């Protein structure tokens, strides 16, 4: 699904150029669950943003499902992202002014899906995430765990090929964290590819493969033998 070759990303200010990613090579197969780890500032989130097509690399190639992404314009990236990718963030990133239902519905609106189909899909995913009873509530009226479930609902409502999770349990207590990880594992078992950035060793154990980044480079890569051990 994902092939990254010699990927570099640098940030330039007036005086300093910082190399956030340095010659990264990575392959992610369909149905994989990959965790990216590393200390703060090592380039994890930058890599995830590039994989999520929110940012362009400075150099190198990035191929997503047969499409070369590097060098695409913002509108082309948005087009490719729509329906193919789902995002789960540490801080949930729900829109405060929209209800639970409306937040989950939003990606479907941008996909120009008709109203009845949208309604059906949103209801189904909310039921599955066990949050349907809160569909008319606004994000501020929910607990952190509930908010993350809404965020996951929003990420999966379009049946994306890939879910990108950026420290999905970072703002949750352990009980809610486990619940969220179980949900992601469930989705992965149903065939959705997942790339997750995490600081948590415990969370990384849910992944098939763990990649360690340091100073913008992949330093180690390990297969996780204990897949599902925590499930």
């Amino acid at each position, binding site marked *: 699904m994902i092939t990254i070759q010699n990927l570099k990303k640098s940030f330039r200010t007036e005086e300093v150029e910082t190399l956030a990613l340095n010659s990264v090579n990575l392959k992610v197969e369909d149905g994989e669950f990959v965790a990216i780890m590393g200390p703060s500032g090592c380039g994890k*989130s930058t890599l995830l*943003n590039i994989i*999520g097509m*929110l*940012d362009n690399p400075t150099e190198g190639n990035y191929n997503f499902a047969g499409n070369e992404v590097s060098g695409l314009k*913002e*509108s082309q990236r*948005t087009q490719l*992202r*729509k*329906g193919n990718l789902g*995002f789960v*963030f540490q*801080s949930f*990133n*729900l*829109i*405060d*002014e*929209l209800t639970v239902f*409306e937040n989950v519905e*939003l*990606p479907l*609106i*941008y*996909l120009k899906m008709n109203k009845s189909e949208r309604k059906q899909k949103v209801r189904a995913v909310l039921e599955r995430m066990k949050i349907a009873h809160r569909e008319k509530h606004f994000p501020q009226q929910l607990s952190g765990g509930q908010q993350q479930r809404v965020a996951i609902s*929003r990420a999966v409502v379009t049946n994306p090929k890939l879910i990108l999770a950026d420290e999905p349990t970072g703002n949750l207590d352990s009980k809610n964290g486990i619940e969220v990880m179980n949900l992601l594992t469930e989705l992965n078992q149903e065939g959705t590819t997942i790339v997750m950035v995490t600081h948590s060793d415990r969370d990384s154990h849910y992944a098939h493969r763990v990649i360690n980044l340091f100073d913008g480079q992949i330093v180690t890569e390990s297969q996780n033998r204990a897949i599902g051990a925590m499930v």
Partner: protein
Amino acid sequence: MLKSYIQIAWRNLLKRKVFTGINIIGLAIGFGSSVLIYLFLSHHFSYDNFHANSERIYRVVTEGHRDVIGYDASVPPAFAKEFRTRYNYAEKVAKISNWDNNLINISNENTVAQVKEDAVFAEQDFFEIMSFPLKERTGNRTLDEPETAYLTERMAKKLFGTDNVLGKTFILENQETFEVIGVLKNIPKNSLITEEIFLSFVTLEKFGDFVAQDTWGGISDNLQCFVLLHPNQNVAAIENQILELPKEFRPDSKNKHIYKLQALSDIHFNARYGGIDPALFWIFGLIGFFLITIACINFINISAAQAFYRSKEIGIRKVLGGFRHHLFWQFLSETFVISLFALGLGIVLAVAFLPSFNNLFQIQLAFEDLLNAKFLIFTLLILVLVSLLSGSYPGILMSRIIPVLALKGKLTHNDTGGKTTRKVLVIAQFTISIILIVATVIISRQINYAVNSDLGFDKESLVMLPIPADLERVQLNSLKERISQISGVQSITACLSSPGGADNDWGTSIKFNNRPENEEFSIQAKLGDVDFLNTFDLSLVSGRNFFENDSVTEILVNEKLAEKLGISASEELLGKQIAMNGGGIQGTIVGVVKNFHNYNFTEGISPIFIADYHSWYSELGIKISEGNTAHVLAQIGEEWSETFKGYVYEYRFLDDRVARQYENEQRYLSLSKVFSALAIFIGCLGLYGLILFFVGQRTKEIGIRKVLGSNVGNILALFTADFFKLILIAGVIATPLAWYFMEQWLQGYTYRTEIPWWAFVLAIVSIMGITLVTISYQTLKVAIANPIKSLRTE
């Protein structure tokens, strides 16, 4: 999608109530002003558009070429007959003569009601030219018949209290009885004809009026001549053809007439011929534009400043598949929702202030004037325009937000952009406000200058009293004698018109010292008796006053005549013969009076002669002592009513009459005051919104500064300094612009005030003061807060 946009727009507006309020109020004032301006302009542009043949209707006007060109909305009385009989250009030709403020007596069984109304003497063909349809009439009778009248439905009801008025009679000026033979439908308010009483033109002869004669000898402003041309006539060719008329009928006159056909659609807008000053429309348009612009700037500034706070939402939308254009249109729909509310409130404000507006401009606009398709189109257009103007820039800014930064909370205020644009827009607002303040100061100064300058005559405590025409000298002197004995009356004169009240004046040719030819220039007639100089305190610079005589033998002139004749010493005029009015008035110059301002300050001083010509006198000028004015006026009223039974006692103060010469200026002043205040108010709303934003943005900085020892004054200075810099830049831009506009305006005055440097300083300092007051509350609130609290905002 649209529903989602509007839904989120609504929730956002509710969430940010203060900013929403600021935007709605600012835009509502802008919209309200635009609605009033729309009503005003559409009323004026609809003038006389209801006549069936409006494109073929013309008024014949005169250019009088002497040493200067004069413009009269009239022609010599004989013109109409000649045009009608000699040429075949017109289907109909008709004269009308407007008479203002006529005394009308209506006998009703045992009572006699007296009213003062304007009326028009009109030839019957006038109703064939214009579309003023009759509702009913007596048989086939028309105004061709002497002593007949048409009334409008409204006037019929007003005079007689009933709709059934055919056959009823009334007396005009205690002289002629008119029979009502027709009732006209009410005249639309957008008509150049405002009178509602129409009298047969042939009856004018009985009043001995000049315009009733078939003469080429002069022009009276009272007369207008309308023509309905045959279809497809060449107006230029007609004007060329009628050049022969003055050559034939006025071969010797120094006042070379050129007759022009003025299209009906031009009459209302041609200031030269008494129409409305087109400058007013420009000023209105500009003010409307200014107010809407200031309100839009508020909107843009506040929204652009808020882009930062909405960056998370925008980031999420982008991540979820929202394109830039989705976000742009989303923001535009929010703007549309706000604008829609503002428009509704604006219309309510406009309707609420309509009576004051009508009062200021002496018009009768009504709410009903808004209930039409044109207004709907106007509101839709302005709504879309304002939404686009206000929403586009913030929309672009927001759609540009980089989602990665927004979602990570790494976005800074600089990343949302628009800082420079915001400064430019604030400068634009300040510039407009400074220009408006300077305009207010200058207009006010010019009016004060005109009203308080020495006009060369006394206008204080002077009462002007109209008297019936054609009084015998004995009657006049007897009345003057009785009034002068009233305690408090200092002096009294009978005259045609007072100095500074040129309504009744007329200009005429002058032949000086038996020269073979008339002079190139005209001279204004100022007729008054021996007490004229004394009552109005006119100064003699040489010679003496004239003595009373039954006919004119001695004449006074002003210094300007000497100047026009090229005579350096006014004494040289004494003893010289002058003849005016084709020799109708002639005599010896016995005195020269100091120049005085007979017209308002837009015009220069003309040559004037003063002669004792009692049969022309139309009013008394009475100088009364200050204090106890009401009692003196009551006593004068008793004497007056005793003498003129059947007439209405009414008076006017001369200083009011002089001030009335500046009615337009007073309107401009009111306009500039009201709209400056509105512009400043809307601007302040915007400033308040911005300071709320800035204070929020710099709370942490303020905390750190306070911890490091900064005091309240330093913090206040921190915020005000930025704004003051912008005000100074605005001052630099506004000064030459305001100077240019006001210099242009003042150039319309022969006698004018200068533009003082302090007007600009005053405007800039005022704006600084207002800004300081506006931003103080929010700034002080944060400046005096505990710094720990400020730092916790992190």
